[in-house]
Structure formats: structure tokens, C-alpha cells
């Protein structure tokens, strides 16, 4: 796990420096100011951007280990502080979306399996097909238009209250719901085909117990792995949603920092996101091992 995080630091540091245009040039370009090469060089020197890359990397890594991600070139404020305040917003949004994904796709997915071939199942399949082929930001606008502008039920934008979070979280979740309904449906159907289910049925175990104790438990490992990946995806996907709903989250900040080539911010962000990804996957493995003894054997001790 530590090796993976170290890899992330390498990627976040060196990959960013492969992008053409450095922060000093970018600073003047976004301000549309015609500056001379000497002035740019002078500021580069002041910022330590002309030191050897490995030296810069070492310095950054040493500070990053102590959770000091340096200073934003643009705002001169500590990156850790800036990222933290915005991360809390984005994490809130992602978490809300995460629970909506689980709740809705769980209910619909299970229902469509239990009443397979029924009205709900057929309706669900049509719905899944339709929503999966719509971009979520567009759907977000439609939702805002109808729910906020026409009906006036929920606020248009902003962040901080529960009602302000309903629409953005739902919009963000929408993109993943069809995927999970399908995942739950197909893996449950697969599980049902398995001999131990047939055996349980033969023993006369109640259908609801079969579904709960055996089928659902059987699909959990696959679900956990997928959900771990989704956590990262939700954080990334939040950027567009944040712009549409004017939410002061990390995604928007990142887009602005990218335009300004604000190295310290970008590095800090990639490192944090990468680390979260690694942790989520680790947690997923851990959960798999708890629910499925076979995984424990295969992987040895965790």
C-alpha cells in the first residue's frame, strides 16, 4: 500500500511537469500581460522552479509526508488549507451521491430480480437504458429547470443546507445508478443459478431468506470492489456538477488551478485523491475478506 502511494507521488509530481507551460508563464498568460523572458526567469528563480527536478521532488516529498503541500502560486495560501476546506464540501457531495446510488440501485436491482420479468423489471430495463445514454450534467440542467425553476421545490444552487444538496447529489448519482442496477441484477441472477441456491430451494428455505442470506451475500465481493472504484469516480465527476450548481468544491478549484498550472495545488490534489483511491480499494479488499472466507484463504493474511 505504501508503495502504491509512493507511486502516486511520483506520478503527481513528474506528470504535471510534462504539461507544457509552467506556472510563472501561465500566471502572466491568464492575466493577459505581455512580459519579458527575463521577468519570467526572475520569478522562476524566486519560486525555486529552476532548481534540479529531483531536488524539487525531494523537498516536496519531505514536506508532503508532514502534510505540508506547499503554497499555491496563485493565491499564496497554504495548499493543505485550501484543499481541506474544499474537500469537505466535495466529500459531502460524493458521500450523499454514494448513498443515493446504493439506495436506489439496491432497491430497484433487487426488486427487478425478485419479480423477474414483471412490470418493474421491464420498466427498469427501459429506464436503465435511457439514463445510461444521457450525459449526467445535461440531466442535471433538466432537473434544475423542472424542479427548481418551474416547480420551485428545491433551491437552484449553492451549498450548505440539506435541500441544497439534494439535486446535485442526485444528479451526480444518476450516472452510476443504471450501472449498479445492471450489476446487481446480473450478478444476482448468476448467483441464483448456482447449485447451492437450488439446494436451498430444494430444502424448502423461504425465498426471502435465500435472497438475503445467500444471493445477496454472494454478490457482495463484486459489489464492494466496484463501489471502491466508484468512490474515486464520484470525486472526479463532482467537478462538472460543482460548476452547474455553483458549489465551492474541490473540482472547480482544480480546474482553475489547472488553467493556472498551479503545481503545488495539483500535486497535493492528485496525491490526496490517489491515496484515497488506494485506501478505498484496501477497505474493499478487507470487506470482501470479511464476507467471503475464500478470499481470506487466497490472499493470505491481510
Amino acid at each position, binding site marked *: 500500500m505504501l508503495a502504491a502511494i509512493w507511486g502516486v507521488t511520483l506520478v503527481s509530481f513528474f506528470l504535471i511537469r510534462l504539461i507544457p*507551460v509552467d506556472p510563472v508563464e501561465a500566471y502572466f498568460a491568464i492575466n493577459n500581460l505581455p512580459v*519579458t523572458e527575463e*521577468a519570467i526567469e526572475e520569478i522562476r528563480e524566486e519560486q525555486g522552479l529552476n532548481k534540479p527536478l529531483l531536488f524539487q521532488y525531494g523537498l516536496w516529498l519531505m514536506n508532503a509526508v508532514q502534510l505540508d503541500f506547499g503554497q499555491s502560486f496563485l493565491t499564496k495560501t497554504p495548499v493543505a488549507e485550501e484543499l481541506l476546506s474544499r474537500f469537505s464540501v466535495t466529500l459531502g457531495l460524493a458521500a450523499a451521491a454514494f448513498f443515493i446510488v446504493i439506495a436506489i440501485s439496491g432497491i430497484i436491482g433487487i426488486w427487478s430480480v425478485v419479480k423477474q420479468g414483471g412490470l418493474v423489471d421491464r420498466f427498469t430495463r427501459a429506464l436503465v437504458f435511457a439514463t445510461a445514454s444521457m450525459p449526467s450534467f445535461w440531466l442535471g440542467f433538466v432537473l*434544475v429547470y423542472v424542479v427548481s425553476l418551474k416547480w420551485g421545490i*428545491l433551491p*437552484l444552487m449553492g451549498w450548505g443546507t440539506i*435541500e441544497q444538496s*439534494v439535486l446535485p447529489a442526485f444528479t451526480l448519482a444518476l450516472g452510476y445508478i443504471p450501472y449498479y442496477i445492471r450489476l446487481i441484477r446480473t450478478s444476482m441472477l448468476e448467483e441464483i443459478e448456482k447449485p447451492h441456491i437450488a439446494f436451498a430451494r430444494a430444502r424448502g428455505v423461504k425465498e426471502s431468506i435465500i*435472497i438475503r442470506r445467500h444471493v445477496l451475500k454472494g454478490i457482495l465481493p463484486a459489489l464492494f470492489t466496484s463501489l471502491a472504484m466508484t468512490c474515486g469516480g464520484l470525486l472526479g465527476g463532482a467537478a462538472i456538477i460543482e460548476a452547474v450548481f455553483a458549489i465551492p468544491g474541490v473540482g472547480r478549484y482544480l480546474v482553475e488551478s489547472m488553467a493556472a498550472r498551479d503545481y503545488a495545488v495539483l500535486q497535493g490534489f492528485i496525491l490526496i485523491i490517489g491515496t484515497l483511491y488506494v485506501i478505498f480499494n484496501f477497505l474493499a479488499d478487507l470487506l470482501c475478506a470479511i464476507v467471503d472466507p475464500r478470499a481470506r484463504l487466497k490472499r493470505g493474511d491481510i
Partner: protein
Amino acid sequence: MKNWFTLILVLLVGVLAACSNTEKEQGNSNSETTGSDVLTMSWAKDIGSGNPHVYAENEMFAQAMLYDPLVTYGKNGKIEPALATSWETSEDGKTYTFKLRENVLYSDGTTLTAENVKRNFDAVLENSAAHSWLEAVAIIDHVEAVDELTVKVQLKEAYYPFLQELTLIRPLRMLADSAFLEDGTKNGIKAPVGTGPWVLTDYKKDSHAEFSRNENYWGEKPKLKKVIVKVIPDSQARTMALQNGDIDLIFGSGQLAPIEYQTLAQSGQYETKISDPLSTRILAINSTYGATKDKNVRLALQHALDRKTIIEHVLNDLEKEAQSLFAPGYPYSDISLDPYQYDTDKSIELLEKAGWKLEPGNEFRTKNGETLTLVMPYNSNEQVDKAIAEYIQGAWRELGIDVQLIGEEWQLMIARAKKGEFNLIANDTWGVPYDPHMYIRTMAGEQQIGYYAQKGIPTSDQLTDNISKVIRSTNEEERRKLYENILQTIHEEAIFMPISYRTNYLAANKRVQNLSFSMQQYEVPLNTYEVK
């Protein structure tokens, strides 16, 4: 199974119920913030920390609300008093002496003094690398506080637009002593304390900022009590917020695309307004690169540009046709030049003359086996630039010109422009109070778009010589002649294609009154706005 369902259902219903319950409270708090004397507007970005002496992340309109310059830019370029009530220029144009206004109060209660003004100048000079583009800073030798209310600025050389550049929104505006950090202002300030008409009273980064009227303002006080700025990055979301009544005002072409403006204007439900010309939207032609080295090709392009169609279809008639680099009314810019008319026959004739022939069976013109290809990079995030570029590509294909569009991120496009790897590129003049001297001056600076435009013409040396002369000249008549000469050369060599004069526009709720625009593109004249 069943209890799972019920649990989740109860949760969902609970959340929905909570929403509808709090809905009423939300409505109440809304009407409170949008009450009389309070205007709520959107802005695409956060306003920044409010440091008057640095650039991005600070938004200029906010800096202009908080801070005052020594002098301001009036109608037709007349310099008018602000924090300085009078000023004198020495015979050689190198010494400027300012008499400061008495009893000007900062929002922290301290008084504006000559010492404080000097401190502001010194803070800017200390960060000179960042301000190297601005001659008014680079040219300052030192600043002296002569007495309590007299400031003397000593320049290294004469520089006639010095006063004009003092009117800029940044970096030469005045911050209170209490807000300075130990190392000046280049690494931030303690708090935004200025003498401006507004005081920042509440601020949440990336969310909103609240400005209250400065009750001690030395000039005419704003009519509004408060201005709330909500950060809404997405333009459609802004439009919806206006329709919903969440905001009262969307100001500026940066916030409203032409088509969105038109939709709002046509609905008749909003107050909409277009400003006078601000700056010029131009296409610069590179005289050092490929086919456009040839003057005849450049002339052919001038005659091939159909401004009317672009203005009607891309700009939705929001901008007026431009025939000169600077709009009439700019200082030194009222000279008569014979504009290039849209005339494709003439264009074809010129291309033929330059040796670019259309061989039968070919789509594009060729010369010695080479195709007439023009490289045109554009900023892929700028919808208007993109549409103009695409229109030109299509229209000029009929003339046998192959326009190669390169849509890329702004930073990459700038990097390409700096290397001079383009034939055509969108560029704007600077507008009030910079022009004409600022745009002209960049033409002499290496790596600039204007530099590549002029570098390849035969009279390039003479042109750059005139440019460096004109900004140093202390003689009005001489300046007039030099500018005339410069603008003449630019026109004759056909290195810039003016398309239209950029404008600002706004859309507001009907309850907002006395809407107007400032001379400066990046200033919102909120002082005069009122709400019913």
C-alpha cells in the same frame, strides 16, 4: 428483506419531507437578502483576496470597488482627480507632484497620507518582476513624501502615458497601512482596507462576497446599501438564477454569451443594455510566417473578411463593425484611413497576383507545388472565437484558402503564439485606459502577437523606432504625428484585421435602475445603480 425496504423508504421520505419543510424558511431568508437597497449579482469566479497590488486570483471589478487610484480616466481620455486633487508635471516630463485630497478615510478609520501613498508605491516597486509589463511601474525611479499631503514621483525617463496608467485598476491603488504584511504586499495582505466606495463586509471563498457602502467615502456615495456577489461559474446556471430571482444582475460579456444575452433581451422580462465600444476584436496576421509574409496575401485576406456576416450570426449584432485598430474617440486615433472593403473578386485578384493559382481539380490554391495553408490557433474554451474561426475556415475555402484550425487550451495557444507559429490569431486591443499606447507598445516587445505581426514588414525597424519614440515624447504635436505615422503603416501593411468593437452587456431584473457601463471594461459602476 421487508424491513430493509421500509428503512430505506422511511429515510428517503424523511429527507424529502425535511426539504419541503425548510423550503419556506429558505424563501424567507431569500427575501431578506434581496430587500430594497440590496443588489445581488453573479460573478463567474471568486473575487480573490482583495490585494490591490497583484493580478489573478483577484477579480478587477472587486479591486475597483475597494480601492481608489490617484487619478481617474474621464471621457475622451481626460485625466480627472481622485485621491489626488491636483498634480504638476515638470518641464522634462520626469517629475510628477501630486497634491492629495484632505481627510480621505480608509475603512479602518485611518487617514490617507503622503507616507502611506509612498508605501503603496514602494510595495509595488518591490515586486517589479511581476509588473515589468507596465511601463508606469518600470519607469519609476523613486517616490518621495514631500509633506503630509504632497507626493513626488521621480521617473527615470519621460513617459507621457504615466497618468493614464495610474488610473488602472491595478496595481497602483492605495491600501491602508494596517493591511500591509511585513514584506509588503507581494505575498498577500492582512485585510482588504481601502478608501473605495465599498467595504468588504462578508466573504466566503468560492461562494459569495458582500460589499457594504462605505459611509465615509470621499466622493459621491453609492445609492445601494449592499451588493452581494454570488459565485456562479456556469453561464446557464447564471441565466437560470436570474430567471429565478436568486440574482438581480449579470454584468459583462465574460458572463453572458451573445446568444444568451439575446434570449434574455427578447423575452422582454429583463432590463438589458449594451455598452459603447470598449476594445477592438482583431485578427492579427503574422508577417514572419508562411504565406502571410507576402503583403499581397495579407491584403487579399483583408478583402476576404465578411464582417457583416460574423457580426450578425456569431456576435448576434451585439458589437459594431470595426474598420480601424482603435475605435474613434481614442486619443490620437482619429485619423482618416481608407478601409478595406469586403470584396472577394479583389481578394482573388490579389491572390493570383501573389502567385497562388487554383489549378483545375484542386480544392485549394497552390504555388510551386505548395498549398495555400493558413494556420489559425484558437482558444477552444472561447465559444465566440471558435465560431468566428470556423466561419472563416468555411468562407475562405471558397476562395481556395485552406485554413487549418487548431483549437487548444488557452495556455497552449499562448505558448504557440509566443513562438510565432501562426498565420492568423484572434487578439484584442487593450481598451480604456491602456490604448492606444499599450497595444502599440506590445508590438515592439519580442514574442508578442503584435511583434510577429510587424516583424516581417520592410519598414519594421522604422516602426519600432517610432513606437519607442512616441511613448518618450513630451511634445503633444510630435506624438500626434508619430501615432499617425504608426497607424498609417499598420493599415498599409495590412497586418491587423479589425472585426468589431467589443462591448459589454448586462441583463438585470426590472427592479434594478440607473444601469450604466464604465469607461473601463473591467469595472462595474455599481455606485450609480439603484433598486426599487
